Each structure stands twice: as structure tokens, then as C-alpha cells.
């Protein structure tokens, strides 16, 4: 009954809303680059077409401070965030509460909460896609044996050359422990101890002097392409489009990938709460999630959307094989614990900064 009500609500309020909200604008904050282009094509433009609402884009590079500044200015409405940052921002009171009933149903027989992946709903955020942090290498850098595992990333003897890394404690410490032989299931448990931290930094230390830091998300692929680095950490979607669309000689290594959720959140400071909700409902519908995954390999968070994912629009590549949550990659994948990330950020950053200063 409840589900039927929502379906009717969408059907009835959809056209009416489009009339009422015509000429309105909504400011959506996202990450720019190929990701935002894909979002424009799969979500923003169809939304404007359906509702008449104009979407204005603001690009940011993540971080809770950026959200705080955006909120202060008052013109940000909806924001695309990494889940752990969304949790921190939510705890800081920067985001509005959000719940299951604000999402469109995919099919009457599947309750919304079962359709989404486990833990997709937090107090202020809905997970929209699954991305992963992987490492990739320049095909031309290693002519014989190619890197295959996360241990190879730390192996300067076998694979000499500069590594491009995000100047941030996320992921790199997890990788360091995996390279020590810690099973993926126990990485967070061990990294939570003083001893685990010590081991991770000991491993990272072996790379000191061979690291080049990157800060914006498009850089790692460029660094590989112009041979500033032989291996680089980065997001799977960016590497994919660099290789597929721009023909860069880049190969992704899925071993040890860290899977995270990308979420939609609504700023508490937004004056257009209802309009923002309307957008989130539209953007998390199975059609839009699948359409996005056909442009850039970020896996949909809804089961009903995963089955819709087909071929890449221009290259014809079967996109389901490139999603981080494709069955062949999940065995050696670490699912990021957002809550842990959010609550240990300061602690890890402190240790990381101290390590940086040592060098």
C-alpha cells in the first residue's frame, strides 16, 4: 500500500511539479571533469527536461570544509559527496535529514530498502554509486612482467619508478597493510591498533623518495600518461575514461581496490529543500543510475539498476565488466568502512602529517 502511494505521488506530482517549478534553478555541487560530464548527460539534462528546472553546477574537490564554506554562502543546494565526508558533515549539522521514503521505487515487488546495497542510507545521505580507489600503471613502463597485486605497488625492486599518490591517509595505509599480507577482512581491525599503524607506515616508508603527490582527481591519469609516474592511485572511473576515451596507455589493477560509496546530500542551508528532494529522488532512480554507469564505470547502488547497465554509449564496451562491484573483482576488494573513516580521520591525518614531516 505504502509503495503504491509513492508511485501515485510520483505520477501525479511529476507533471504538476514541472509546471510549478519551471524557471527555478538548483545548484548542484559535484566533482567536475568526466564524472560531471557523465552526470550532466545521464541525470542533470534529463531532470531539466522533465521538470523545467535549470541546474547550475559548482565544482569542488571534496572535504567537509568546502561544504562549510558553501553552506555559509547559502547558494549550494545538493551535493555529491564521498560517504565518510557526508557522515562528518551530517554530524556537523551541515546537511538535511534524508530517508527511504524520499526515494523512487523501482518495482512494486521490491521494497526500496532491499533494492539498495547494504548501508546505502545514512542520516543525511543516500549512496548513489559505487566507486573504487585502485592503482593503475603505464603500459609502457613495464615491458616484461606487469604489476598484478597491491604488493607489487610497494615493490620498488621489481617495478622501479615513481608512484603517484593522493596526499591523504585514506587508502594508502590500507594498501600498506595488505602488502604486509594482512587479509582484506582484517585490514580495518589491524589498522585500528597502534601496532597496525606502525606497520603500515613502515611499509609506506619503503616508498619514500619515490612518491609524487596528486591533489585533483584527473591528475593521476595525466601523471601516468606524461610519465611523471609509473604507477598511480586514483578512481577507477577516471582511469577508465583516460584509457577508453583519451587512449592513454593505462591499465587498472583491481587487486586490493577500496570500494566506497558516493552519495547525494542536501545542504541544510539550502532554501530549496523540496526542489532538492525532487532532484535526489530523480537522480537515484534506477534509470538514471544505470545511464550514469554506461558513461563512466561507477556501479549503481541499486540491484534493479545494475541489471540495466549495458554498453558504453560511444565505444560499445560492455560496462558491467568495468564496475568495481563486478563479481570478478569483489574477492580482493576492501569495502570502505565510512563510519570508521569519518571517526578516525583526525587520528589518521595526525599520523600521516607526522610521517610526512619526518621525511
Amino acid at each position, binding site marked *: 500500500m505504502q509503495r503504491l502511494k509513492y508511485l501515485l505521488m510520483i505520477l501525479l506530482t511529476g507533471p504538476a511539479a514541472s509546471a510549478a517549478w519551471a524557471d527555478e534553478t538548483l545548484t548542484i555541487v559535484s566533482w567536475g571533469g568526466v564524472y560531471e560530464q557523465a552526470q550532466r548527460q545521464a541525470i542533470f539534462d534529463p531532470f531539466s527536461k522533465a521538470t523545467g528546472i535549470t541546474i547550475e553546477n559548482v565544482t569542488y574537490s571534496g572535504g567537509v570544509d568546502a561544504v562549510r564554506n558553501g553552506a555559509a554562502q547559502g547558494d549550494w543546494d545538493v551535493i555529491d559527496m564521498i560517504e565518510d565526508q557526508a557522515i562528518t558533515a551530517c554530524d556537523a549539522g551541515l546537511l538535511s535529514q534524508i530517508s527511504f521514503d524520499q526515494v523512487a521505487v523501482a518495482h512494486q515487488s521490491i521494497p526500496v530498502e532491499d533494492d539498495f546495497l547494504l548501508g546505502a542510507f545514512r542520516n543525511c545521505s543516500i549512496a548513489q554509486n559505487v566507486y573504487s580507489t585502485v592503482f593503475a600503471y603505464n603500459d609502457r613502463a613495464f615491458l616484461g612482467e606487469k604489476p598484478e597485486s597491491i604488493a607489487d605497488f610497494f615493490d620498488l625492486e621489481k617495478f622501479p619508478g615513481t608512484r603517484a599518490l593522493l596526499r591523504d591517509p585514506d587508502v594508502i595505509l590500507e594498501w600498506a597493510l595488505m602488502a604486509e599480507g594482512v587479509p582484506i577482512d582484517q585490514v580495518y581491525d589491524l589498522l585500528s*591498533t597502534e601496532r597496525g599503524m606502525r606497520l603500515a607506515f613502515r611499509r609506506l616508508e619503503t616508498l619514500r623518495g619515490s612518491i609524487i603527490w596528486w591533489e585533483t582527481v584527473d591528475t593521476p591519469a595525466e601523471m601516468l600518461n606524461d610519465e611523471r609516474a609509473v604507477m598511480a592511485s586514483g578512481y577507477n572511473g577516471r582511469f577508465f575514461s583516460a584509457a577508453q576515451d583519451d587512449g592513454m596507455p593505462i591499465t587498472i589493477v583491481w587487486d586490493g581496490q577500496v570500494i566506497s560509496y558516493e552519495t547525494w546530500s542536501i545542504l541544510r542551508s539550502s532554501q530549496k529543500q523540496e526542489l532538492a528532494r525532487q532532484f535526489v529522488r530523480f537522480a537515484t532512480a534506477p534509470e538514471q543510475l544505470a545511464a550514469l554507469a554506461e558513461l563512466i564505470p561507477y556501479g549503481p547502488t541499486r540491484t534493479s539498476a545494475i541489471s540495466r547497465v549495458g554498453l558504453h554509449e560511444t565505444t560499445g564496451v560492455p560496462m558491467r565488466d568495468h564496475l568495481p562491484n563486478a563479481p570478478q573483482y569483489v574477492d580482493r576488494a576492501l569495502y570502505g568502512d565510512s563510519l570508521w573513516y569519518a571517526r578516525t580521520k583526525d587520528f589518521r591525518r595526525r599520523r600521516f602529517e607526522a610521517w610526512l614531516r619526518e621525511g
Partner: protein
Amino acid sequence: MLEQKSNSAPIGSAAYRNFAMTVSAVVIGLIVSLAAIAFVEVVIWLNNVLLVSPRTRVQFDGAGWLLAAATILVPTIGGLIVGGLLRMSPERRPLGPLDVIKSVQLALPPPTPKAGILSTLASLISLGFGASVGQYGPLVYLGSMAGSVLDRLSLRISNFSSIAMACGVAAAISTAFNAPIAGLVFAHEVILRHYSMQAFAPTTVAAATGYIVANVMFEREALFLVDFAGVQHGHEFALFALLGLLASFIAVAFMRLILRSATLAAKMPIGPMYRPAFAGLAVGLTALWLPDVMGVGNETLRFATIEGAFFTWELALLVTAKIALTAICIGFGFAGGVFSPALLIGILFGALCWMLVDATGLVVTSSVVPYAICGMMAVTSAVIGAPLTTILIVFELTRNYDLTIAAMVAVVFSNLVAYRVFGRSLFDVQLARRGIDLSHGRDRAWLSTQRVSDILDGNFVQCAPHCAVGNVSAQLHDTKWHEAFVLDATGVLVGVLDVLGYEGDLDDPVSAWMRPPALQFDDSTTLAEAMRALEGFAGDVIPIVETKTKRLLGVVTQATVIKSYLNAVRRLRREENATA
């Protein structure tokens, strides 16, 4: 008393019994594995909520005093709750594998369900609140409890009670370790102590059921994943054997300390209810600067196989602290097992030995991994007295043949020494202290619990010292006896009169001709002692007196004692050779 728990006579065909036993095994396997998973999950949940697990502790790193306060208060409060729970138990103490062994070996009814449930709750609290105890002991008891519940259905299958308990134990180990073969072997090696087809089949079914539930239905992760490429050098096997020898001393020290700690606790001026809290406080205070000692310590277990995770002094300190705190926790009444702590102590000790060998630079070694695993298994097998089980656990947990062979060598040497120096296992020594000695086999243990006073014959001829021999002789004439027992006015046995071949005056008082009894039992004499005493005894009947008052309770014939002995032995042999 000899037939303490007379199983109802078996009914139906062997086919019925096989079928009923198999179905029971599946049911027990299902119940136990679900209960075991629930148990483990509750412990994990409590550990998270109560800031015991490092993964939640680190999230409160910035919260200052909160973490320190929780570290001290949580185990202390846990101790208070445990003390309260056990006070309500009819047994007044936590139950564990030794209660299962006792019940199965002596065919005694297990402690009441109330005691079992309270003990299980107490162990949940102990583990959840971070006491330094293990979870497998309570799980073994939980398993046997499910088995004994099914026994109440009276399916009228011989030996059902002990087999059902063994099934529960096998399922618990199978689920908790993801190791069905080890579960099966543990049930035989430690609990049943024989291998009959009748028991083997259902325990296998129960262990497999536990495995299916854990793996197929719940997809539980393996407990211990470790990469190991193989032992590189032949000489390392000598080191494994040496490590086994050294580990046995660690195991013996650990077990002795547990026993001593219990004695110490009894002498302390603290009521039994508050003793666990005292141990909890000790754990909390130590954990302030050595957080590895809290709880089961899965993280520490993992670190031990990583080279360079510990400094040598850290390992030595941790081995000592873990031994001491576990002994205090168990001795002072926390509810929990010794298996997980033994694993942890052993693996740290193994890693320590490797570091010392490695530091000398004299011997080349493969890596820390086989030494850590050898140490772990060598200490554990000596503590639980189950070499075969521990070897199989290594195999099933690591799925690594090389490691299993390495561990096998260490385990055997450790067991050999620990058996000589201490005893078969902690459980066996604890049972022996309660008068149940299994060190000379099941037969002796069983016979040592049977009292001759239970088979006494009250039908005998007695007389006062002043009676005439003639009168007594006439009385004896109507019976099968030729000996009469002379009692004083208070009923105390003063002598025996044998009228066979009596040639004196029939009017003489009995007191003139009586002699002290050649052999006499009291109400504490066991069947085993009686059998030994009968060697060289030529008489007819043996008087049994009350130990304190020396009053005559009755008599027992040599034939009755031997018959009881043969019955007991026959019962055990029947059980061991049963097929259905």
C-alpha cells in the same frame, strides 16, 4: 548407583536407531551452529559497544578520558555481573569442557539446564566485557547442552546421551572454527575417548551440519588466513621439535598458574561474587598500557605472523601478561575457556622464539609464520590434551599442508613432555582433583567412581560379643554364610567369627573365638580399590563399615564385586564397539 543413568532398553531395529540418531545429529548440528554463531555475534557486538575492540576504540581516540575510563570500568563491571550470575547458578561456578567430559565418561546426568544457561550468559558477559578468557570452552558446553536437551526425548537408543553431547560439541567446534574434521576428532579425542561406529556416524553428521550452516548459509569467514610458501630448509624441523619442547613448559606454567590462581582466590578475603570484578580490574589496569591483553585478541593473533610487528621485549612481556591475566581471570571466576588464550600465548611465544633464533644469525629460517603456528598449536594441544585435533585445526584453518606438517612435529613433542610433567590436559588434571582420574583410562575412572557400598548386601548374620558360639552357628546354618559379624552395643564391628571347622565349646562366648576381619571396606571404598584389595583375599564376604563411626553397614561377597567389575567393563566395551 552402579547403573546411575540406566538408558532405557534399546528398542526397534538397527535401522530405526540409525535413522533416529542421524536425524538427531542433524537437529543438534543445526541448533548448535545457529547458537554458536549467535554467541559469537553477541560477543562481537558487545566488544564494539563497550569499546573493547580496537576498531571502535580508535574511533574514540580523541575523546580523552573516555577510553581510559572504559578500559578500566568495562571489565570490572563485567566481573560484577558475572559474579552475580554465577551466584544464582546451582553449581556456583562456570561450566566447561570438563563438565562435559565428566558427564560423558561417567554416564552422569549433566548439570541442570539452569546452571548451563547461567554459565553461558556469564561467559557471554565475560567475553563481551573484555576478560582475558576464551570462547571455545563455553561454546563446547553450549553444544553439549543442546545435545543433552535432545536426550530428554527418550528415544531409547543406547548411549544416546553421550553421543548427543558429543554431536553438540562437534557441531560447536565445526562452526566456531569452520573446521568440521577437527570438530569430529575433538568430540572423540577429548569427550568420548573412544571411536565406535555408533558415535562416529552421528558426530560426523553433526559436524558437517555445523559446517554447512557456517559456510553455506552464513558465509562466515575463515578464522585464520595466512600465506605461507612452505618450509624452505630441512633443519627447521629440528627447530620445530625444539619449539614444541619449550612450548610444553609454557603450557605447563600456564596450567599450573590457573590452578594456583583458583587456590589463591579461595584464600583471598573477597567473597566469590566479587572475585571476577577483581580480575576485571587487573585486566583493565594492564590494558591501559598493554591493550593487547583485552578480550580474545584476534588482532594480536594476526600480528604475530607478520615479521616486525613486535619488538622482542614486547613479545616476552605480552606472553607473560597474557598467561598471568588469563590465570587470574579463570581462577577468580570469570566464565570462559582456556583455548583462545592458549592460542594467543602460543603464537606470541612461537614468534618470540623465531625472533631470538633469527637475531643470532646462525640459522636460516623460512619466515616467522611456521614458528608462530607451531608455537600456537604446541601450547594449545598440551593445554587441551588433544594433539590430533590441533593438528587438524591447523590444516583446516590454513589449508596449508606444509604448515600442518611443521605444526605436527611441534605438537607431538609438546604433548609428550606436558603429559609427563603435568598430565594429559588441564581438564583431566582438574577432574583428577575432583576424584575423577582419567589418566589410567576410562575403565579405571569409571570404577573409581563406583562405591562398593552401593552393592552391599544387608542380609548377614550379626551377634553381640557375649553370644554363645552355638547359637550363632545355628543361625548361620540356615544361611549361605559361615561367617558372622560381631558388633558391640553401638553397632561397631569388633570382629568376625568363622564357624567353618570350629572345634571349640559351643557355649563359649563369641568374643573368645572372634578375630579381626581380614579385609574390610568402608563407604568410601571404590570398586577399583576393592578389586585391588581382593588380590590375595581368600575369604567369603567382606564387611563394609561407615568410615567415621566404624558401624557395620552390610557386607559384600567377592563374587558380587567381581560381577560388578565385569558389568562395568562390559558396559564400556559395548559402548566402544557399538555400531547402532
